[in-house]
Every structure is written in C-alpha cells, then in structure tokens.
C-alpha cells in the first residue's frame, strides 16, 4: 500500500486519500455516494454502466469514478444538471433494453436498477421498449438465469472468476446481443465447472439470476465479495 497521499476536491469538499484510490472510493470515504450499478466492492472495476460518470474541471471529458484514480489538485463534481440528465438516460436505456416489469420480477423491491430509477427520479422511459425474448435457463437444480432481466453488468462473471475462481460464467456474442453463458454455452444443468456456490445470484443487481423457491431477501447478499476478500486478507 502506497503511503503517498493525494489532496483533491470532491463537490467542494477537501479530500485526502492514498495515491491510486479511485474517485468513487475517495468520495465514499467522505460520505459522498456516487450512483453505481456494475461496480461492487471486492470485485475488479468494470466501467460499463456509466452511472458513476463525474466531471473533472479543466476537461470536457467525463470520467467513470469507479476506474479513475484520484490525482493531485483534481476538482471533481459528482452532481450537475448534465450528469443527472445522463444518469437518467442511462437508467432509461437499461430499462428499455430488455424486459423489465417490476411487478412480475422476483427481485421486486430488492432490485438495484429499480432503486436507482427511484433514486434518480426516472418517472418515464423516453425510448421505445425493446421487449426482448432472451433465453431462460432453469436446468440447474436451483439456480435460474432469466436473461430478459440481465443488464450485462458482469458482476456474476467477475464473482465467479475472481472470488469463486471457477470462471463458469462468461459472455458470448457482442453488442446488444451479448449474453451471459455457462462454460462453452452449455445449459447450466450440464455445466461441469459450476460449483453451485450461488455467489452469482447473491451479487446480481437485478432479478436475472436467482435461487428458485428461495425468498429473494435471503438470496441477495451483495456484500459477499467484499466480505470474502476482507476475510482472505486477514492473516
């Protein structure tokens, strides 16, 4: 761990943090919560959802807080009209991309996308909805993936690779056709590498991966990765 510290400003607050810390972490440490979806403590940053974009004065570019390290003298703005507008569009795009109907979703009331929409004040979707017909795989004894609800945050893929260490899950195809798959696109029930550890279901921010028959509040333990990493680091 580097002992060098960096001084910067986040939303006008003076912040001092260790060199190499991300803007997201540095902000959190002083109580400034930047909206995120794909980011999860304990997993590597992905930078995909684009909700955590922030402004840095002196450049017109926007930076994802989850992957951008702090720099000396940085002046970061986490809330502006433009950022609020963009975050709303991002959530609307995710809601329109596949089939998200809260009332018939297992994750209703335990869904980070739903909570994010509420938090950001998304009260309508300006896009034509793309009612997707993606494959549902319930061949596993108790784990189910409903790809219609997937937001492609890849938390499940990262937790499977980085925490469980088996890399059963990965992506196939690209762009809007991207899908989470098991092994070389096997049915989940036929996967030879899956250890049925349920971590994918625990960290999934939405209702795409869940445990059949289990109350959702029992399944969703999104701090599992952070917890395991912290325990492993204890000597």
């Amino acid at each position, binding site marked *: 761990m580097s002992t060098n510290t960096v001084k910067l400003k986040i939303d006008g607050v003076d912040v001092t943090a260790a060199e190499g810390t991300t803007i997201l972490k540095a902000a959190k440490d002083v109580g400034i919560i930047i909206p995120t979806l794909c980011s999860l403590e304990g997993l590597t940053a992905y930078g995909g959802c684009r909700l955590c974009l922030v402004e840095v004065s002196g450049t017109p570019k926007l930076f994802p807080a989850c*992957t951008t390290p702090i720099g000396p003298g940085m002046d970061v703005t986490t809330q502006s009209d433009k950022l609020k507008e963009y975050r709303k569009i991002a959530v609307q795009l995710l809601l329109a991309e596949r089939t998200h109907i809260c009332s018939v979703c297992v994750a209703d009331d335990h869904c980070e996308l739903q909570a994010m929409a509420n938090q950001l004040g998304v009260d309508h979707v300006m896009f034509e909805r793309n009612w997707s017909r993606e494959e549902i795989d319930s061949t596993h004894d108790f784990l189910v993936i409903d790809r219609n609800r997937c937001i492609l945050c890849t938390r499940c893929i990262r937790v499977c690779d980085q925490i469980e260490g088996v890399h059963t899950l990965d992506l196939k195809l690209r762009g809007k056709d991207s899908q989470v798959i098991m092994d070389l696109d096997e049915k989940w029930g036929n996967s030879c590498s899956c250890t049925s550890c349920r971590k994918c279901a625990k960290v999934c921010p939405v209702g795409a991966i869940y445990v059949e028959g289990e109350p959702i509040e029992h399944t969703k333990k999104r701090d599992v990765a952070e917890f395991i990493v912290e325990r492993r680091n204890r000597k």
Partner: protein
Amino acid sequence: MAQELEFQNAYKYRINVCCSSGCVPFGALKVLKAFEDAVKEFGVEKECKVARTGCIGTCSVGPAVLVEPGDYLYQSVTPERVREIVRDHIVLGLPVKDMLYERNAYFKKQHRLVLRNAGKIDPSRIQDYINMGGYGGLLKCLTDTPQAVINELIASGLRGRGGAGFPTGQKWSLVARAQNSPKYIVANLDEGDPGVFANRTLAEADPHAIIEGMLIAAYAIGAEKGYIYIRSEYPLAIQTLQKAIAQAKAMTLLGESILETPFKFDLELRFGAGAFVAGEETAILASVEGKRAMPRPRPPYPANSGLWQKPTLIQNVETLANIPLIIQNGGAWFAKTGTPKCTGTKCFSLTGKVNNPGLIEVPMGITLREVVFDVGGGVPDGKKFKAVLVGGPSGGCLPDTLLDIPIDYDSLVKVGAIMGSGGIVVLDEDSCMVDTARFFTEFCVDESCGKCTPCRAGLARLKDVFGKITNGAGEMSDITTLEKSSSFIRDGSLCGLGQTAPNPVITTLRYFKDEYIQHIVEKRCDAGKCFKSRGEEEIE
C-alpha cells in the same frame, strides 16, 4: 548491393502491374501473365522487367499498369491489349495514347510520402525496397542514441494516423521513460471501416516501410518484441507481410543482433477476426493477448501498462511508414509539409459519388473542396454534390458550406467530423441524409462490443428511432430523442467507438435537419431511399 543495382540497371524499361486487392478482381493477374508472355514473344525480356507491384492509386480504372521510365500510366488494361503496349511502347518507343490515364487532375494535388513506393516496387522483393533507400533510416538511427531518434520525431511534429492524432514523439517518450520491462510495440492494421482500404493497400504495396518503422520505434523505446495486428480479411496483405518478415529475418534486419549490432527485435503477425472494435487501442491489446476484444478504461494508459501489463507502444501502420522518412531526412524536413500544428500527409480512401475514387495521399491542410473536386474530379453524371462523410462510419456528414475547411485533426473535430481511419465518402443529391445516418448507426450497433450502456443500449435505440422515421411513423419528439441520446453516447461511452458513433447522427441533425422534418412531417424522402419496404402503405 552492387550486384542488385547492376541487376536493376540492366533493364531499360520496367512495367509495374498493380496486383493489389483493388486491381486483382479486374483481372490484374491475367494482365501480369500476358505481359510476361508478350515480353518473351517480342524477345525484350532482357531489357524490360515486368514487376508485380502494389497499388498505383487509380483504383477506379484497374487494372492499372505503370511503365517506367517516364511514369506512363495505363488504365483499364486488358490481356488482349497487352501485346499492343509491349509492341508499341517497349519495342517501338511509342506509348499507346488512348489507354493512358489523364494524370493531371488526380495526381497534381497529391503528395506521396507514405505511398512513396506504392506501385513502384515489387513488395515481394526486399531488394526493391532497399534500392529506393529502404532500411537507410534504420541504419542511420542505429548510429544514434534512442533519445536523438525521439527528438527527431518530436521535431517532425508527426501525429498518430490512427485517428486521434496524439503526438507520436510524445508517445514514444512516455514508453521510453516507463520503468517496467520488457516493452512491446503493436502495429495497428485492423482497418475495420466499410469503404476504407488505406492501411491494407500500404501493407500490400510497401510492407517493409511498416517493418522499418517498427524497428526504428523499437530502437527508440527499447522494445524487443512487436506484433502487427491485422484482420484475417486481408489475405494478400498478410501474405505480403509474412514474406517481407521472412526476408528481413534472412538479411538480419530482424531477430538477434540486427545488422551485427546488439540491437534485437522480433516481429510476429497476430490475426483479428473482423471485429471493428478490435482496432481500439485497449481492445487490440486484449485481442493480441488472446482475450475477447473489449476495450478497458484508461488510465492505466498502454504506455505504462499495455500488453501483459507491460509498457506498450501502439501505432497505426501509416504512422509507422512515415518514420523511416523522418529519420532519413530529418524532422525539420518533414515539418515543412502540411500545417504547423499538423505536419505531413494523410492517406484517404476516397469513395462514393466521385469521378476518381481511389487511394489518395494529400498534405495536411488541404481543403475538403480540393479533395472532392480537384483530386476526386467532382461528382459524376452532372449530379449535384450534397455532402461528404469524413472519418468512416463514425465520421461527420459535412455540407457544401463547410468544404473550405482545411483537413487537419482539430478543424475536423470542430465541425463534428473526425480524421478517423481516413475514409471520405462523397454523397450526391441521390443520397438521403436520414438514410445515411441510419446506415452508419446500424453498422455501429452491430460492431458495439456491448460493454458500456450508452454504446450498447443507446445505439440500438437510435436504430429503432431511425426505423420509425424511415418507415413513416416518425414524430417530432423523435428528433429530441435522437439529440439527447446522441450526446449521452458521445460523452458517456467508454471507448472511441461509442464516443464517435453518433457523429453521423449529430452532424446530419445539425446540417440537414430539414430532411428529418420532411421525413417526419411530410413523410417524404426526396432521394427516394426511405418508406420503401414495409412503409409503402403508410405513406399518405
């Protein structure tokens, strides 16, 4: 070396037959064979060399044949007329006038630095390249310090030709200064844009210029291993490069102790599988490592943490082909061409509704009007010019009123276009701008890697809106949707693909909004491109 010169000088004439990917489909290989036969038939094979070369530049009138000395360029040569050329031109010394290409318009405003050898040398013979002064840059730099080489680059003002225009000398300094080792070089030959063929043509015509550029870069930054990342769809370029690498190895220009110095450098080809996004600099690294070609956020920048987390220099092959010239002639010499902030030349694939399509190389700072109307010869069939798309599928559509801007990185960005991969598509009055924006949006939807929300989900929704408008179901609110989502995709996307993908939408909305309104309100498309398939009955 002397032997080779003697060999070359023994010939009085040299017939260069373009056998690049542009001319081969027109029957260039048959023409080449016909020349070889005819030369023998007339018994002039001792004084006339028939060479298989790369692109001469006049792709619209292939197969093209260049007869030297005198630079006589024959167009649309058929095997039937080859005997006539050999008989009249080589034997009797009388060029066949009716087949000669009218050179003035097309070549006058061009300035060929990168394409200096294209169409003049046989790319399969390293001796041809050496004869033109090739590998002289490498020789010269080996007698100098790496820092002196970098200083020359900085003095030249060369900027990356991959599209973003980052100063090359500065990039080299960053990699040279990086502490970690080993260091790598990746040459980007993943030219994925529809209608763009500059890098392919360069590799097919002058592969050693790329290799020499990489060698000089390797010496300057201290790299021992390089990769050329090339798309599998370029079989001839791959073949040409493989041969060139083997020849360079045989002459100790690659491998251990290059030219009997301690400097060593190894070069390998890596093949892409045709994903447009794989040309993005962090995606290319993932692909070279054998992973899925998905971009990652920067920082860390490849200069510090690239291939296998080691310092890596990534350059477009066109940038690399400039390097030997800069080292040989000096940075100050190079900086004389182009504009002060944007030196040198740029290759463009000029296509679309233009009289002289082809691969062109023009000095930076030339105006778009000169490119379209002087080099390109204007719009054919007396049609009216409508717009020019600069920068490939994620470029901007610029109207006639903007044609007088100079071509350089900064001016283009100001008007909403990009240098990009160097694609220039000319559109005439028969093109519908809404349909054009729809076409390129669909391309980017297919090519998005799917990592970030704006590019993956945003572009797909743009495509839906275009579907609505071009089917007659458009509403005025759709324009707001297009504008809002385009700016989010531009500002919010992770990599260059997403950040530039909405450019055709943004620029057509800026310069041709009338057409959108016409499509939405009057359900009318003057160019007759829209409302065709499903929408016929929807038109009032």
